[in-house]
């Protein structure tokens, strides 16, 4: 019972983090160590039968934290092809999506600032579509995967350096129920 409650609490924390940061955090979520908890004192009128059961719906019990599965993938300048180094990430995402088949994903496509604002909107969409196509090729249902381009509107790093630019050229995955 306590274990379920603790798990649910941690998963809520994960979702809060995801929705606040908007991008995949790579931090592991620590589950409270159950063993250190004090046993309950006598609680008087409350008996075992009256304790409410925690509502644990199936979809919140994941085998691993969502944030470590859905990491950003990246692209070369002016390109939208999937890089070899991201194939493992997409494979991991596809595996997870097959195990959690009620989940939908919106794939965001982003660009660095160097193209025109207008063309970057199309390029961002191509990046999202490329990720989507790859996942569909790995067996994920196409209807579960949406695409949205942000062009150069939402850089992760606003600086004008090669390092910032390469971070900004990305596809980002937003999971929803």
């Amino acid at each position, binding site marked *: 019972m306590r274990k379920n409650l603790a798990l649910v609490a941690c998963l809520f924390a994960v979702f809060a983090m995801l929705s606040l940061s908007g991008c995949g955090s790579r931090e592991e979520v620590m589950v409270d160590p159950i063993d250190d908890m004090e046993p309950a004192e006598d609680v008087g009128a409350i008996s075992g039968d009256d304790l409410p059961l925690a509502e644990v719906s199936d979809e919140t019990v994941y085998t691993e934290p969502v944030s470590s599965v859905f990491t950003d993938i990246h692209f070369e300048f002016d390109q939208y092809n999937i890089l070899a180094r991201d194939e493992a990430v997409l494979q991991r995402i596809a595996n997870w999506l097959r195990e959690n088949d009620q989940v939908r994903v919106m794939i965001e496509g982003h660009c660095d600032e160097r193209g025109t604002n207008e*063309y970057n909107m199309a390029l961002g969409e*191509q990046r999202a579509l490329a990720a989507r196509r790859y996942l569909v090729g790995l067996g994920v249902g196409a209807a579960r995967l949406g695409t*949205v381009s*942000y062009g150069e509107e939402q850089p992760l790093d606003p600086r004008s350096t090669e390092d910032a630019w390469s971070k900004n050229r990305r596809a980002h995955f937003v999971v929803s129920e």
Partner: protein
Amino acid sequence: MLEMKRRRAPLAQLALSLMLLAAVTASAQVHLNVSKAFGQKVIVAVPLFELEGGTIVDPVAARDVLEFDLGHSGFFDIVGNREFVDETEIDDRISARIAFQEWSALGAEILVKGKIGGDLTEVYVEATIYDLAQGKAIFGRRYVGSRERWRDAVHSISDDIVFKLTGETGIAKTKIAFTSSVTGSKEVYVMDYDGENLRRVTRQNAIALSPDWFPGGEEIVYTIIKEGRHQCWRTTIAGSGTKLTAFPGLNDFASPSPRGDEILMSLSKDGNPEIYRLRADGTDPRRLTFGRSTESSPCWSPDGRRVAFVSDRAGVPQVYVMGASGGTPRRVTLQGNYNTSPDWSPKGDLIVYTSRVGGTFQICTVDVETGETIRLTSGAGQKEDPSWARDGRHVVYSVKQGGKTDLYMIDIYELEPVRLTSGAGDYLSPAWSD
């Protein structure tokens, strides 16, 4: 290799135009045949406006508006010495006559005498235009309007002067739509073409993109990224809007047809960004392009029979032209390896677009038939999103420089950029109304 090239009439044509000018002066005709006489401007004196009644509208501001309109039309040079001009005007008022010879001595050929008056609710603007060689008035105009819209009244007079003297349709009453995030979210705004009278159109609290006008200058179509999705909306300037499309993926670059009954868009709903043609209410999408490349940024030819758009089918973005019902696209940008954001001139002959030249975005035109490419802008600053005025002569575009983006306009013959915006914030994605 793109070259910075002014549109100069070749020598023979120049000789012809000088002869024409002599003929014009001799017969004292006022109409200026601008298509032959490049660079032959009519010199206009615009003295301070006469004020009737109290100072309801600042007569100095009224004169400034008229002078800006005429001076930037491309057809007139304004007599520059305001002191002499205004002294001559005062003398006229004192002596209750017009000293035509004095005005001519200032170099003027045309004299515009303006008058402004009214009360708290209503304003009238009057102008009488004199041909100094003939020594007489050739026409007059009077406009009445609300006090808040006094600028429109002066702009109307400017357009009338341009039309009467050149036969060309002026741009003084046109507007420019654009996006700005000065409020914290990117919204659509509208301003008068001279940079005045900025007003906000949308209140979506999201990311508004690439506005474009319906013919008539009253309604705007734009894209919005809202709640994680692209949508296309149509709105009046007053801000009442409806959603047109919300397909999965792109709902972008909406471009209304010359008759306003259809829109072109780039949609990715079928798995790839392609060009579609839809009804102006967002229904009945018909796909025009096919293949695996990226198709975006469509626009119409002025006769509505062809479209131009950007495709990377050659490996890099270039501008292509195609029949408005589809067919085999023909590439029209032949120089450079990154050409985007086309807009087709209302005169039909040129497409203006953004071109990456040596690492910097510049504005260029290409002749659709001959392929002649001319660069309009030069120097530092990223110039994007050009849009034609209805005179087929002026282009508005954005310039990003020193961390700030502003709107500029340029006359494709004069090639002198004129800055239109200067307030805080960035001004992007301009579209010029008709």
